[in-house]
């Protein structure tokens, strides 16, 4: 890949990433399939009583969004670090 193309792709990824971060932080991401599935379970099986939820929760959707952002950032760091170490000769 030529340097110009690499820079273009990198810039496009950064812009997309920034757009996604803004959407997540502002709460503009619509309802997830997890929520829709939970609703559908209760609709399909109205007699079903869900078991206990996890005893811990994140408190608010903003905190949840922030934690997912952290997971994504952690994953990206791990990926980049591992790739960098693999490039380094032993």
């Amino acid at each position: 890949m030529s340097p110009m193309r690499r820079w273009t792709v990198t810039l496009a990824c950064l812009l997309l990433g920034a757009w996604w971060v803004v959407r997540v932080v502002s709460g503009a991401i619509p309802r997830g399939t997890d929520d829709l599935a939970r609703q559908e379970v209760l609709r399909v099986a109205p007699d079903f009583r869900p078991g206990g939820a996890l005893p811990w929760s994140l408190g608010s959707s903003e905190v949840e969004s922030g934690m997912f952002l952290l997971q994504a950032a952690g994953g990206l760091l791990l990926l980049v670090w591992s790739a960098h170490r693999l490039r380094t000769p032993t």
Partner: protein
Amino acid sequence: MHISEGYLPWKHALGWTLVAAPFWALGLRRITASVRRDPRQRLELGAAGGFVFLLSALKLPSVAGSSSHPTGIGWGAVRLGPEEMGVVGTMVLVFQALVLAHGGITTLGANAVAMAVVGSWTAVGVFRAARWCGLAEDPSLFLAVAISDLATYATTAFQLALAFGGNHAGVGATMLRFLGIFGVTQLPLALAEGMLAVFVSRLLRSSPLSLRESVA
């Protein structure tokens, strides 16, 4: 899409955990052996794990006013092997349940079977089949990753239908209902994940990374 804590009857939760357990054991054995043989395999696992962590955290808007997330499993399975990715995917699920309160502990087995097991093995199977049919590596990888993503969600739909469809509309009809929820949302994301996998694969191919050759 992860089945939330408490949203599977305990018998089904236990059953799926028993299904997942041999794959965990197999994966741990493979990882132990490969790391013992070559310690740098840890870095390859790290790269695959980082990819799964990254993609599974990306809640992306899709069509029909809903959102979902890709899995990231397919690429790692084709590159490293389905056994190893069975363990890597499960570790991500454990992290999300414990830290993000996303998914569940009792439903870990079911979620692991859907994402880490079916997702991984589907990716490798489709990749090998596509290569056997004469497709080049990039289109094969695209198909493998996209179909793996869809297979994960189809498995989840099946798990929920098995748990809740028997006494009501029937397993088949219930599965179609859940597929109707997941399918519309997930299809564009699966295609995007396929393209991303090809892009990352090309990026790594053009760099002197020592990632293991494709399992095919």
